[in-house]
């Protein structure tokens, strides 16, 4: 009876297993040279001075890591290709084989060293404690340990960063922490004193870069917690790692590294602690020449320039509109698939034999009961591993867009299945009886009589879900898809135009969902008229 439905289910299952795939070769140094590109991963959202959109042309990227990547690529005789990824997921992208190299302020830790190839440090960072300029009660690290007004001090930092570790070790239970996803968000919240935050601990280069934009903050005490920014490769790519080490050493000795960091105001005496610098004749430089103004800082030629108003909209609005295109593309691809899978799941639950109905019910519960972001993550990072088990040696993988569409479609299919099931159940039993007593098979009756009627009933709630899906596409940034929300975070944080670009982003979302709302209303009216005759 449901033979054709079963066939379609099988087809869907097969289609899910074999999404649009691309084959990645093992990215050893030979492969990189063969390809002519070295793919490096970082998160633009982290902002300056690491990697951030050029304020004059936001489609271009600036930052010392962009220049480092070029340095490395030149040394390898290939082109540097940037690949956007969420900061904390960059190691996963290495594992997946999407990128060859992570260059994004990753600190050396022994844990990381066990799992990944870590280069010699390209930068020695320190941490800077920041307080509000007006806050007289905070003048040293030790002040953090003293409660004010009977409550513990609250310190902000980037979540998962060395700053967080340092503050936790320093303060233990005597200090509260407020963790943020963006370094500038943490500084903003501290400047404004949001949720009782007293201070911020920041990587020194970040503070140097953004200091101009945060006149309400002042550095407190000397920099602390020295550590190493390192480049990261897969453990197996030892040739690549050695090549990266070679060029870093060379660039350190011939002053190229110095010039890059000086440009972003990041060069300081701490960098010389490696004791590797030589002069033109190859002689070791033990003591730096004293800087003219007594400061160990070289003057930065590039730094944070907060912008706002109409200018920032003109400069960066185009990028947001372009990213809205990705949001639309994701939604209109995922939703029809979700509805189709949903219908099949609903039919399996209502009319299928137990061996289809039971798994369908479990599917709905599992998919509805787990977060979309987890599903996307699993699909994107687990599928290549599964494919490798099923088709060993073929090196199949799933690209980010396909994984995003699949994740959204699977997640929404569970909801659409329930909507369809409700719709089908609300069709009077007499409709099926009339159809089969006319000699129709059950599947013919479903196709011609039941599903068309149910579809009319479920269109309005499904359009609502479609609008929700538009907004849920924002989650896809965890698997490197840059859509409207991610682009907003990247642009707003680097431009410091949270309000202007935020309004534009909201407007763009509204422009996408409002026509759908209007359509739903019209549809409902039309269907009601039809029902009345």
């Amino acid at each position: 009876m449901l033979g054709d439905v079963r066939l379609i289910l099988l087809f869907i299952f097969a289609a899910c297993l074999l999404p649009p795939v691309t084959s990645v070769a093992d990215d050893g140094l030979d492969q990189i040279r063969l390809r002519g590109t070295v793919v490096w991963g970082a998160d633009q959202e982290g902002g300056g001075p690491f990697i951030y959109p050029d304020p004059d042309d936001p489609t271009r990227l600036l930052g010392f890591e962009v220049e480092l990547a070029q340095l490395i690529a030149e040394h390898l005789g290939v082109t540097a290709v940037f690949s956007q990824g969420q900061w904390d997921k960059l190691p996963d992208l290495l594992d997946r084989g999407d990128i060859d190299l992570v260059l994004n302020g990753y600190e050396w830790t022994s844990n990381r060293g066990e799992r990944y190839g870590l280069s010699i440090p390209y930068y020695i960072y320190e941490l800077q404690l920041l307080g509000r300029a007006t806050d007289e009660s905070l003048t040293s690290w030790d002040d953090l340990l003293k409660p004010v007004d009977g409550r513990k001090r609250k310190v902000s930092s980037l979540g998962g960063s060395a700053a967080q570790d340092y503050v936790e070790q320093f303060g233990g239970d005597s200090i509260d922490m407020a963790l943020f996803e963006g370094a500038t968000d943490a500084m903003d919240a501290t400047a404004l004193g949001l949720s009782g935050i007293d201070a911020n601990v920041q990587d020194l280069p970040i503070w140097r870069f953004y200091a101009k934009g945060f006149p309400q903050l002042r550095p407190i005490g000397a920099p602390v917690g020295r550590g190493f920014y390192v480049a990261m490769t897969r453990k197996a790519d030892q040739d690549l790692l050695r090549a990266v080490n070679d060029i870093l050493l060379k660039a350190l000795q011939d002053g190229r590294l110095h010039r890059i960091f000086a440009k972003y105001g990041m060069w300081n005496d701490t960098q010389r602690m490696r004791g590797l610098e030589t002069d033109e004749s190859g002689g070791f430089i033990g003591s730096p020449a004293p800087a003219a103004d007594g400061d160990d800082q070289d003057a930065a030629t590039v730094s944070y320039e907060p912008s706002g108003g109409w200018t920032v909209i003109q400069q960066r609005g185009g990028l947001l509109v372009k990213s809205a295109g990705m949001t639309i593309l994701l939604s209109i691809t995922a939703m029809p698939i979700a509805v189709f899978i949903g219908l099949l799941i609903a039919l399996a639950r209502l009319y299928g034999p137990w061996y289809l109905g039971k798994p369908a019910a479990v599917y709905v519960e599992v998919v509805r009961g787990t977060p979309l972001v987890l599903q996307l993550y699993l699909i994107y990072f687990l599928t290549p591993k599964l494919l490798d088990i099923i088709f060993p040696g073929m090196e199949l993988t799933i690209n980010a867009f396909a994984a995003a569409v699949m994740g959204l479609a699977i997640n929404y299919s569970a909801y659409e299945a329930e909507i369809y099931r409700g719709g089908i159940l609300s069709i009077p039993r007499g409709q099926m009886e009339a159809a089969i007593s006319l000699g129709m098979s059950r599947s013919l009756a479903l196709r011609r009589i039941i599903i068309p009627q149910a579809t009319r009933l479920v269109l309005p709630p499904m359009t609502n879900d479609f609008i929700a899906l538009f907004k849920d596409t924002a989650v896809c940034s965890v698997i490197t898809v840059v859509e409207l929300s991610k682009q907003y975070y990247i642009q707003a944080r680097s431009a410091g135009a949270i309000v202007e670009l935020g309004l534009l982003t909201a407007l763009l979302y509204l422009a996408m969902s409002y026509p759908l709302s209007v359509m739903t209303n019209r549809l409902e009216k039309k269907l009601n008229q039809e029902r009345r005759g």
Partner: protein
Amino acid sequence: MIVLTNLVKRYQQHEVLRGVSLTVADGEVCVLLGPSGGGKSTLLRTINGLESFDSGSIRVNDIVLNAAVGPERDAALLLIRKRVGMVFQQFNLFPHRSVLENVTEAPIHVLKQSREAAVLNARRILARVGMADKEHARPGSLSGGQQQRVAIARTLAMNPEAILFDEPTSALDPRTTADVISVMTDLAASGQRMIVVTHAMSFARTVAHQVHILHAGRIAESGPPEQIFEDPQQAITREFLSEAARA
């Protein structure tokens, strides 16, 4: 020829049909009468498989339907349903299709007739039931009597050997009931075999060839209408008829 042999159906412990046997010859109109809950509708619905049964058998010409479920029964049911139509108390027209589409749906998709042939035939049948001018209407805009006449047309389009009527006028007011009864009478006169569950006594009296009184899952009395109405043999029949006359 439709032959029911010793049909038994249970709902859990309750026996709804307790061994019903009856024969409907070609061209015959058979009316099932009896008090509510006597099993009339259930009996009718077992004939085209809308209800299963526990023992006995149903034969429609050369197709035999047994109690045992399985692919054999499914195949037999599909054949029976193509040849035996059904008209419901609640019409059950397809609300998302026009009157004409309701009538052509099964001929096109079940009998695989060409659209043109199906439409031509549907128009002829709609004219016969007096609904020719409503072919583009949606069922929702029709009165109950009009809907039931479309439902009869929908069944007729399958060119059925027999039509099962399950209380076709019980949901209608007296005026539209008369329209439907007149269509049914017309059909009977043309030799259409039918089995009718109804409370319309005049139809039973004037149109039926055989009347069966069903009570508590058994046939209490059978015979031509003159005998059942003028000279009932069973106390149950007499009681039912006098109650029906009072109502």
